[in-house]
């Protein structure tokens, strides 16, 4: 179909339209309809784009050009326009992110009835969606910075949404300080690469990449900044504050937004630098970030007493698995034999873990939001016996907790197994750390389950009822996604994860889609 050519542009344009029109909907019912319809449209577009990329390979879209596929107009040597380049990995991230944004939006509908200023919440939510999807589909480094800042500015506002609580303001300020510095570091890195190659397009830079000192400085800036933005230890201190203070629908979605920074990290190290990296140093740095994040964050999580803060530490810890998996893949990138033996499995594990984590951590945050909505507290010492009053929420919690702990047959088990198998080939200690982390994860979720849902009925919670239906619908979206990924692992690996890992490895294909094979 012809209009499907414009899918990459629509993926950004629809949430932007949603954002800028949202303040006009002061009426509650109209606002809810607008929110639902536009976010559903974004998800459908992301799905269609994913299907198209699966069928036709990399989709390139030139913004503002006379022709959408004319990447090198009139014999130019470098692309001069802003190009969106969507390969299987981008489409995979966009699909995963938009499903979570849909679930978070449906969940937030009734949440907003308790506050004023809901239409501003909707506007910022759409801006956050647009920023995240833009980061994941752009093929231009500066454009990546711009979308990074759009997503960041929207998330400062949303984290501080309950601005009558000092803690929320403090969390937002902390995040803003780190995030602004990270974004400026990205911008300096982009400037260095522009100074060397006179181009901003990732494919064009990758084509002429020669690793010298300036490139190394730029790479160090990118890795440090994006590791900070995706919340890897030792730069994770904003994560527990921001995730625990934001409204639940936002915490759920922020997980996916920080994965967009993870996407940037992988995109830059694989597609822009890729084979020009002749040292294993970068891969080891990513692996060490991964191991540290996994272990330190899970130890911090075990001792938490507040449900959302505990879950936020787990978000850091689970990011470690993705860094470990894809880091092992980067280590094997230069050696075809190692790649086929364990590298590709590791990348599949890491990338599968991205979508798994987006779904189950999103669902966990939503169940935490439900607990708070229904009972008014998230303190584990005060909660208890909620399984009687909230049967559906309990089921959702059990499934997603099993998934994060990596219990078979739920989806977390599959991706963790892939990471264990392949990291063992690099060094057994990596696998040991990953296993210990998994056990501690299970321990801390057993603690939450036991103290929040089980136990005798508490008198002060006798009035607690199950949350409204729209919240349950939002949670069900993620529950279905988890069950789908759990019971169709072969389909997920061959149709969803395999192509994404392949696209990340295939640097030549990424360059060729923009620069052409001639030249």
């Amino acid at each position, binding site marked *: 179909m012809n209009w499907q050519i414009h899918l990459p542009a629509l993926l950004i344009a629809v949430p932007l339209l949603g954002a800028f029109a949202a303040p006009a909907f002061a009426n509650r019912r109209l606002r809810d309809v607008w929110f639902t319809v536009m976010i559903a449209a974004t998800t459908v577009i992301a799905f269609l784009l994913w299907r198209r990329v699966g069928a036709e390979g990399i989709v390139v879209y030139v913004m503002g050009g006379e022709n959408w596929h004319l990447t090198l107009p009139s014999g130019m040597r470098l692309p001069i326009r802003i190009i969106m380049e969507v390969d299987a990995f981008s489409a995979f991230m966009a699909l995963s992110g938009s499903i979570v944004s849909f679930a978070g939006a449906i969940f937030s509908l009734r949440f907003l009835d308790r506050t004023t200023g809901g239409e501003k919440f909707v506007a910022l939510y759409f801006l956050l969606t647009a920023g995240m999807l833009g980061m994941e589909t752009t093929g231009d480094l*500066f454009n990546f910075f711009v979308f990074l800042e759009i997503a960041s500015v929207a998330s400062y506002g949303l984290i501080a949404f309950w601005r009558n609580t000092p803690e929320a*303001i*403090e969390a937002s300020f902390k995040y803003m300080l780190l995030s*602004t510095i990270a974004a400026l570091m990205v*911008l300096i890195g982009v*400037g260095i690469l522009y100074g060397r190659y006179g181009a*901003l397009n990732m494919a064009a830079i990758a084509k002429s990449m020669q690793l010298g000192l300036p490139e190394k400085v730029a790479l160090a800036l990118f890795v440090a900044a994006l590791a900070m933005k995706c919340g890897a230890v030792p730069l994770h201190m904003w994560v527990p504050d921001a995730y625990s203070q934001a409204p639940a629908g936002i915490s759920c979605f922020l997980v996916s937004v920080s994965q967009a920074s993870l996407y940037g990290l992988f995109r830059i190290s694989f597609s822009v630098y890729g084979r020009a990296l002749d040292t294993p140093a970068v891969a080891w740095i990513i692996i060490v970030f991964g191991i540290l994040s996994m272990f330190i964050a899970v130890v911090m999580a075990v001792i938490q007493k507040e449900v959302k803060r505990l879950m936020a530490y787990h978000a850091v810890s689970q990011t470690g698995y993705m860094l470990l998996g894809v880091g092992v893949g980067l280590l094997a990138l230069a050696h075809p034999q190692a790649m086929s033996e364990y590298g590709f499995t590791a990348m599949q594990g890491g990338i599968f873990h991205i979508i798994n984590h987006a779904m189950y951590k999103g669902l966990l945050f939503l169940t935490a939001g439900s607990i708070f909505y229904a009972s008014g507290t998230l303190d584990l010492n005060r909660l208890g016996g909620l399984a009687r009053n909230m049967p559906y929420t309990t089921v959702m919690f059990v499934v997603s907790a099993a998934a994060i702990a990596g219990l078979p047959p739920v989806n977390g088990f599959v991706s963790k197994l892939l990471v264990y198998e392949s990291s063992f080939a690099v060094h057994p200690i990596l696998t040991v750390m990953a296993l210990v982390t998994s056990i501690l994860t299970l321990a801390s979720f057993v603690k939450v389950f036991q103290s929040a849902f089980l136990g005798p009925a508490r008198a002060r919670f006798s009035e607690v009822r199950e949350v409204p239906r729209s919240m349950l619908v939002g949670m069900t979206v993620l529950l279905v996604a988890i069950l789908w990924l759990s019971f169709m692992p072969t389909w997920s690996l061959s149709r969803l994860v395999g192509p994404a890992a392949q696209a990340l490895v295939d640097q030549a294909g990424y360059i060729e889609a923009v620069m052409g094979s001639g030249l």
Partner: protein
Amino acid sequence: MTGNLPFVVVGLLFAIGMALILFDKNLIKIAIGVSMVEAATNLFLIVLGYRTGGSIPVYTLAGEVKRMVLPTPQALTLTAIVIGVATTALMLSLIMLLYRYYGTLDVREIRRLRG
């Protein structure tokens, strides 16, 4: 010799800004530090595109000239400045709210979230 002078200024601005962010205890001064790092970044981009003796990169206004400064970094800087304004405004308003709740601008006393 003046060729590398702008880069030295960029480095200085960056270092002063980072030092303020890392070591100062006053929120307003931290915000000033962020603005200085921003200014260093913008100056860096502009200097990258500068060509000695170049004219403005607008065809209709430049007249008959051989070299122009590069237009792309200027476009980048313009965008970065706009983003910087948004961030600074938001940062200052958050500082205002923090002052209202905590009654101080000292980062050591604004610490309810920990552990």
